[in-house]
């Protein structure tokens, strides 16, 4: 009967329902957006293995920010992160693998072979194992001990002109690093100093000398938090070689005296070698736990390890931070959508109050025919709930339509970006049911006042109403 009554006033019911639909769609899309963004982020993190990853820092001094950036170099307080510590951590239960991680200095710029444009080279080294393996857009992860091989981030691939569909073509291409001036590490043989005369110029020339070092691209790492910038990855083995410093030093006291005075005379010299990585240790360690459930436990075990004072960053810290951001965002956006629902509820009240005026006589007749006050009240409440319910249903229908379309374009985009995700827009069931329930309740509440008005009408007056 309620449905019939709505149908009779098609246009007005339609308009009122549309208002609810708009409100519902607003709430649904905005919330879906946040939920989708959040879930895509999680999926991506999960795919990248970040959720099972613990970052170990040399000290447990708090590091601010969700990604804890800015401490990967040296100069950090605390213990030296070296292979003995790695071995100790590897023995902790639920640890799958441990990798050192460090920035590599020595290479200044990089270009693709056959091109001229140079980019600054930011190298990060990891041990080639399960702890540091990432999700590849193209190519593969490192094998143990590989040198002269690089994995590049998508940022570089794009700069080199390889994007989306042709990204796989970059695999096997060569990049050429240009070293910093006076580089003396991997691949460099220190020239023999001249044995006669004033060699100031020769030394200065040596200190300005740069070298070109070739490397093959074996993989392109998927972009994600922390890996979407200019990053080039190499193995720790190669990093060791690159970061070995060698220089000529005077052999014996007499020579050292001269050197202090800046006199470039020939004197007996020897080559001194320093392994920088051995000396300083790794910038930090990446520990892979066997599951997302054990990751927090692993982190706390590492912190307690032999009172070394190691610091850890778990995805939990990051997730908490993210969750906060997404929750706030969700509340704000849903509230904005909620405003249109509130407006829609005013529309329902208006429609139903008008209906009680117009249908006063009808109400009188129904009362004369034996309808109770409660029957009238229920009828009007039912009509209002129905407006809310239909509005919610249609809103959800529209949402699913939009999701279909959105996913078609979304999948296309994801494919082009080589992100291995599909149908990322996935409105949760609780949201759709919740919105239908919510609009129905709003309709019911909006209908209460008009319904009580209708029920209160004196049947005699109602029948006399013109």
């Amino acid at each position, binding site marked *: *009967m309620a449905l019939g009554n709505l149908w*009779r006033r098609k246009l007005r019911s339609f308009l009122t329902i549309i208002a609810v639909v708009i409100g519902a769609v607003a709430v649904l899309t905005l919330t879906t957006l946040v939920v989708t963004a959040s879930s895509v982020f999680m999926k991506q993190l999960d795919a990248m293995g970040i959720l099972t990853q613990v970052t170990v820092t040399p000290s447990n001094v708090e590091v601010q920010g969700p990604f804890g950036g800015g401490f990967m170099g040296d100069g950090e307080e605390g213990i030296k992160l070296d292979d003995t510590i790695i071995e100790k951590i590897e023995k902790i239960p639920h640890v799958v693998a441990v990798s050192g991680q460090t920035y590599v200095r020595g290479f200044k710029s990089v270009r693709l072979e056959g091109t001229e444009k140079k980019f600054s080279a930011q190298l990060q080294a990891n041990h080639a194992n399960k702890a540091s393996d990432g999700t590849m857009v193209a190519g593969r992860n490192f094998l143990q001990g590989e040198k002269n091989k690089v994995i590049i981030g998508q940022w570089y691939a794009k700069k080199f002109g390889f994007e989306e569909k042709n990204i796989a073509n970059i695999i096997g291409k060569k990049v050429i690093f240009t070293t910093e001036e006076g580089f003396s590490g991997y691949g460099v043989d220190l020239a023999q100093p001249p044995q006669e005369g004033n060699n100031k110029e020769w030394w200065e020339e040596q200190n300005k000398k740069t070298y070109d070092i070739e490397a093959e691209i074996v993989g392109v790492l998927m972009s994600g938090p922390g890996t979407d910038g200019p990053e080039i990855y190499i193995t720790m083995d190669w990093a060791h070689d690159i970061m070995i410093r060698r220089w000529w030093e005077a052999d014996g006291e007499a020579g050292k005296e001269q050197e202090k005075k800046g006199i470039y005379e020939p004197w007996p010299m020897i080559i001194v070698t320093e392994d920088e990585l051995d000396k300083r240790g790794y910038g930090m360690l990446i520990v892979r736990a066997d599951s997302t459930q054990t990751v927090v436990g692993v982190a706390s075990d590492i912190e307690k390890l032999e009172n070394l004072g190691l610091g850890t960053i778990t995805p939990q810290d990051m997730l908490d931070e993210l969750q906060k951001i997404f929750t706030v965002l969700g509340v704000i956006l849903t509230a904005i959508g909620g405003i249109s629902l509130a407006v829609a509820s005013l529309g329902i009240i208006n429609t139903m109050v008008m209906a009680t005026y117009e249908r006063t006589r*009808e109400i009188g007749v*129904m009362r004369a*025919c*034996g*309808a109770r*006050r409660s029957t009238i009240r229920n009828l009007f409440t039912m009509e209002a709930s129905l407006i809310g319910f239909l509005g919610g249903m249609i809103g959800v229908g529209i949402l699913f339509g939009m999701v279909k379309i959105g996913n078609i374009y979304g999948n296309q985009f994801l494919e082009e970006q080589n992100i291995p995700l599909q149908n990322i827009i996935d409105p949760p069931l609780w949201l759709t049911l919740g919105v239908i329930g919510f609009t129905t309740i709003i309709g019911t509440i909006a209908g209460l006042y008009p319904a009580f008005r209708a029920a209160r009408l*004196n*049947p005699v007056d109602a029948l006399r109403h013109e």
Partner: protein
Amino acid sequence: MPIELQSIIKTYRMGSENFNALDGITATIKDGEFIAIMGPSGSGKSTLANIIGGLDTPSSGKIFVNKEDISRAWDRALSHYRNKKVGFVFQTFNLQPHYTALENVMLPLIFSKVRLRARKKKAVACLEAVGLGDRMKHKPGELSGGQRQRVSIARSLANNPEIIIADEPTGNLDSKRSTEIIALLKKLREEKNITLIIITHDMNIAHQADRVIYIQDGKIKKAR
């Protein structure tokens, strides 16, 4: 179903003054009787009819229907009474313009929670009883005044009422249709032993009644 009215008073507030629309009505209506209520406009005829029909309640006094006092009854009981025992016929028909004749007749049956199939069957029977078996799918707008009043009579019959209250049922009809409608009501009353209460200005109708109650200023002036 005998109806007994005891000193019925109905007071309305008009501005700052109280006005007694009914001022001590005492009367008895016997089971199956045909009563005509007459009186000038504003004399309280309709108020009386509404109180008998359970649409309104008296300010004081008692009204016994079948020995049961309905003057202080709750909405629930009164609604049930209107639904099951009383059929109303109005001067202006009061049909739902968007419903077909059939749907209009089915309305009271909805409130007595009759199932759809039984509801239809009963409504069809009622429409046939008033001679509108061929007009069931028509909406009131497509029917003549006489036919509309027949629909409204059919509606009043839907729940097999024991009382039919017709408030100037022929007020909007020409004399030929009036005669037909009154004849129909009388026929139904005889067939089903219904107490028939008609409010009217028409002396012809009054003459056909078993009894005439004449009301003026809320009081019974004379009764025949």
